[in-house]
């Protein structure tokens, strides 16, 4: 496939890895922010090509994983309401709420449907005018243009039976929270390429300057990842902290301005609780006041939910990058993709699921673990 095979070439990957080995003289910890990148790294063994000096810390960029438990519980409550068609991306169905998940609610008779795009939910609202159609709108900046457009189209089409349960999260405030957290070990970031395809790179220079941290916008294929890592290590070795774009075939400085305009119209910033991490100021989007009539939280009185996490689950530590998935005592034992204790074991972008599916069952004696205390 064009624009794919050439970025998966094994020979070039080894050359890039050799170049990283050549330039790395000191221990460095790099965080890939995006869960999609985590999966590509583990599936392709990118981390295993790196020299012992370079450790990858997996970041919190799995939208399914950080969607707060309270939102899942609200989703379960709304989905169980008679007359509701509840639409979600497939990833969310097995994510554990306090008691059960959307799949269990569906098994008990609720009309829960997996959609590929929020536009599918808008179509359902149009064709089922006697039903309330609710879409669970989660994700980072990447899915926001789609979710925002769904609301705009629903208003244009006069669909009063359509609403969104919104739990959007944003990358730059998460980077800031990680850099401010006590015991932070991150020396450089691989910024999420597809988030930047929407938002551009202009948000990142102030962060790089304030925290003196290199930020390299990085793609998802093995060579993209290795090139992002190489550029970050070159900066670190040279004592630089710039924003670089290693994914220029997809990302521009300004991003997709048409998408940013619709996002700014439909959504407004909000303090958001991240599952396993806590509240990060201005780290999410809610529906803007002009679109509050599409807010499922206001439309459905599901009441205050009291969320209860599994006491065994340490997904918060995994999301903060302080624990590798296979260092968790429950990993592969009480917690598997079939019986997940936390969302990081469910999602196709969760770090725990990535490790499990790649067969990384036993905690390896990584160089990174040694660096952790140095």
């Amino acid at each position, binding site marked *: *496939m064009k*624009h794919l095979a050439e970025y998966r070439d094994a020979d*070039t990957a080894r050359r*890039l890895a050799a170049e990283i080995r050549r330039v790395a003289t000191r221990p460095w910890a790099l965080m890939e922010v995006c869960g999609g990148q985590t999966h590509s790294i583990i599936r392709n063994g990118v981390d295993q090509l790196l020299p012992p000096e370079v450790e990858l810390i997996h970041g919190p960029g799995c939208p399914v994983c950080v969607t707060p438990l309270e939102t899942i519980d609200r989703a379960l409550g709304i989905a169980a309401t008679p007359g509701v068609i509840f639409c979600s991306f497939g990833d969310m169905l097995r994510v554990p709420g306090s008691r059960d998940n959307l799949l269990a609610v569906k098994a008990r008779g609720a009309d829960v449907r997996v959609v590929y795009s929020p536009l599918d939910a808008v179509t359902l609202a149009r064709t089922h005018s006697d039903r309330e159609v609710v879409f669970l709108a989660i994700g980072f900046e990447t899915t926001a*243009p789609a979710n925002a457009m769904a609301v705009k189209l629903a208003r244009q089409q006069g669909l009063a039976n359509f609403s969104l349960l919104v739990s959007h999260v944003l990358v730059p405030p998460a980077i800031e929270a990680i850099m401010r957290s006590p015991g932070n070990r991150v020396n450089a970031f691989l910024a999420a390429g*597809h988030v930047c395809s929407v938002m551009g790179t202009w948000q990142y220079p102030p962060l790089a300057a304030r925290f003196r941290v290199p930020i390299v916008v990085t793609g998802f294929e093995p060579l993209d990842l290795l*090139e992002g890592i190489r550029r970050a290590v070159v900066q670190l070795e040279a004592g630089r902290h710039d924003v670089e774009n290693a994914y220029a075939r997809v990302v521009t400085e300004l991003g997709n301005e048409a998408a940013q305009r619709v996002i700014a119209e439909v959504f407004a910033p909000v303090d958001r609780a991240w599952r396993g991490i806590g509240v990060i100021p201005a780290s999410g989007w809610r529906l803007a006041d002009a679109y509050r009539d599409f807010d499922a939280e206001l439309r459905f009185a599901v009441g205050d939910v009291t969320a209860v996490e599994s006491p065994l689950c340490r997904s918060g530590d995994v999301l903060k990058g302080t624990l590798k998935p296979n260092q968790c005592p429950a990993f592969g034992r009480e917690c598997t993709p079939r019986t997940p204790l936390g969302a990081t074991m469910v999602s196709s972008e969760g770090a725990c699921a990535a490790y499990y599916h790649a067969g990384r069952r036993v905690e390896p004696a990584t160089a990174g673990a040694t660096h952790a205390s140095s």
Partner: protein
Amino acid sequence: MCLAVPGRVESIHEAEGTRMGRVNFGGVVKDVCLAYLPDIAVGDYTIVHVGFAISKIDEASARATLETFADLGLLDEGLAELRGDVADEGPAP
């Protein structure tokens, strides 16, 4: 949901007041909303997220990146080390 592969725009049409297109992902063809890429044309490659085309792939940048990779190997002083790597993983000479 941030993972995505490039697809080729095969046709463009209007539906429900929005610009839509048929996009081919290595043989799988999907209906995709093109509202956010007003300039995209048939034959262009695009990255699609949850049914929306977000960015057009810049062919010149794609080529430039691949050329950088090629140069790295040729200019690399550690080429001998790297040849060692390849030999380690390849069949015995």
